[in-house]
């Protein structure tokens, strides 16, 4: 599944970059994220509860930051597992300054979901994912623009 979009955030690019590179900060905006633990400078592990339709699963997600080109580009690779389900994702983001006080973020993600969540929730995944993405950006914006 491919998701993509762009978001305008009313904050300077350096501030946006710093926020997005801080797993704790970003993690606090992820719906269902319960904990984020750094493993090393570019790896961290998150625990999140995800519900699709009538099923929910507690995922352990290992994430890796790659291709970092501060303050413009990053790639994040994620591999998450829950009992009977797995998710693999590769996401990219590109920041461009829109003047001194605003930043545009172009993002894209390829997501593969397998197991129970794919079987049982197939028809609901896209809608749920969109909702979760919207929630995440709303949260990021509200924290950065505050």
């Amino acid at each position, binding site marked *: 599944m491919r998701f993509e979009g762009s978001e305008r955030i009313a904050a300077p690019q350096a501030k946006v970059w710093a926020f997005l590179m801080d797993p704790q900060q970003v993690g606090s905006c992820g719906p269902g994220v319960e904990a984020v633990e750094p493993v090393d400078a570019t790896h961290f592990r998150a625990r999140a509860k995800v519900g699709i339709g009538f099923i929910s699963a507690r995922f352990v997600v290992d994430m890796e930051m790659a291709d970092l080109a501060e303050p413009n580009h990053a790639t994040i690779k994620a591999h998450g597992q829950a*009992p009977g389900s797995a998710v693999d994702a590769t996401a990219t983001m590109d920041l461009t300054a829109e003047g001194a006080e605003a930043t545009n973020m172009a993002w894209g993600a390829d997501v593969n979901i397998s197991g129970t969540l794919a079987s049982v929730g197939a028809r609901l995944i896209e809608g749920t994912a969109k909702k979760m993405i919207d929630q995440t950006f709303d949260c990021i914006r509200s924290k950065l623009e505050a």
Partner: protein
Amino acid sequence: WMPTLAGDTQMVLPTDTVMYQAQEVAGVVATSRYAAADGVAAVAVDYEPLPVIVDPFKALEPDAPVLRPDRGPDKANNHIWHWESGDRAGTEAALQEAEVVVDQDIYIPRIHVASIETCGCVADWNPVAGHLTVHMTTQAPHAIRTVFSLVTKIPENKIRIKTHDIGGGFGGKVPVYPGYVIACVASITTGKPVKWIEDRSENLQADSFARDYHVNIKLGATKDGRLVGLQAKTLADHGYSDAAADPSKFPAGLFNVITGSYDLPKAFVEVDGVYTNKPPGGVAYRCSFRVTEAVHSVERAVDMMAHELGQDPAELRMKNFIRPEQFPYRSATGWEYDSGNYAAALRRAMDLIGYEDLRREQAEQRARGELMGIGISSFTEIVGAGPSHTFDILGIKMFDSCEIRVHPTGSAIARLGVQSQGQGHETTFAQIIAEELGIPAKEITIEEGDTDTAPYGLGTYASRSTPTAGAATAMAARKIRDKARLLAAHLLEANPDDLEWEPGKFFVKGSPERSKTIQEIAFAAYTNMPQGMEAGLEAVDYYDPPNLTFPFGSYICAVDIDRGTGEVKIRRFVAVDDCGNIINPMIVDGQIHGGLTMGLAPALYEEIAYDELGNNLTGTFMDYLLPTALETPAWETDKTVTPSPHHPLGAKGVGESATVGAPPAIANAVVDALWHLGVRHIDIPIQPWKVWAILQEKGVAT
């Protein structure tokens, strides 16, 4: 690993490589359902994604990953077996010379029986007696007991399979599943009874599937509509293990009955079995060993041929049917059809639906731009496996059995080797005995499904119960009647040859007042038998059918297509069945109504779909749509009666006829409605989105 009924092997639990999504990887034994669920949630498995083969055509490509390296270096590919039947050269020549050839790829999708009760068992090991009792949902309790004994080395007398009442089988409860094995091992390990039951999603995702045949069919004819040859090349997707419940000599079941109801001089069939990353199978789904796949292919091809030639599909069928005087008829692939009158059944169906009027109405509607179609299916089934010279499962011959004991006061118990799953065996078999011995049906107990008491039999599937166990019941009753004649002669002081039978009593020829009822005779069998005669009145029969039975029928379906939504609405559906002599009309009608609904299901709704990563996308009834009363039309049924010449009662099997016959009638109707727009074929299930896309493409959507 454990053996499958097809002679392949499948995993009980994988040790390193998982072969398909939803494969069992661990067993959790707990004292309650809740604790078990918590235990399952605590099992952490780190899966490393491997290349996936979903498409059986890709499985055969030279660089495809080998899914079953356990088969050894000689078999470093995903090809399981090749099977062929008929005359290849003759058929190719006939198609070469044919004036018109229909050549069509047809996919008959993977579906699931989805019986109301899922698979499950309670395994109860008695460590003191060294005895295993398994209460389980199986269609073949005796065969299961033998497999269990062979695998576990527990002596067969120390294993008892009890089935109790079963909530639907349809073929899905013939195989042995890992859950049964794990429950038995858990009970042996703990010394406690252990229950295993699937939830709905496990049942849909992990159990044996049905169908999944990729068929290329070629049908040749002369310009005036005489069929001259048929060729079918097929890829059979078996998942990661061939766990079909087909007889040993028939890896593709009875698929070579694909010549159907037609007098086809030449035919050739070849099937290749292939491994993919899907659950092992396949089983029947209320279909005698791949007959649905065959019937769908030939009935679609014949319909296409009629349209190509500009002939009426009914007329083309009438022209090519095997004629009544040709029976017993030997088909081009070697089957000996026992009896049939195909034209009579089709004519009856045409009269019932008012075929000629419907065609006129269709022309009028088409002129108004409305999409209405009429589809015919004139199927021939092949059921009642089977004669021991050709039919066995894991070496066990496919006879079936009945033991009848008449008690001193004249009531009786009959035990059979088959296994009812709701087909009403208790009624049908009691009626056979009532008819043969004159004992009222209500005084006859029918017992099945306890391997400690019932005579050995292969079980109920493939519409085989009446052809095999029904025949055994009649034969056992006739053995009892033969002894009853001797007892009556003794009581009446008459010569046995001077006695005549009417249901319920023997009387002396010419003096009907000198008679003994079966009840009087039964009492005498225990109280007053002649010198030298064994006491008791009982008999057992193991019936080895001389041939299969070939029930048939003609179904006609009229559909209206909603040009806005693509939805197919069945306006009328007429089903004329011929299953030979009928023992109980209500039971037969019940079988046909249920069967028609289970034929409607794959035609319009059901498919086990996978994404390219091998995820099963239809793991619940939200996505795997079973027709309910809302989707099901009012079936109109009727019968013709052409008895089987070799069955003791002239009966044929019927349980699956409607499931086999209905899908092409519906598919033919939909294509008939769209043919003038250039549509030649639509693969089932014909879900609204498929039709909607066609309506959009052809510019006729509203």
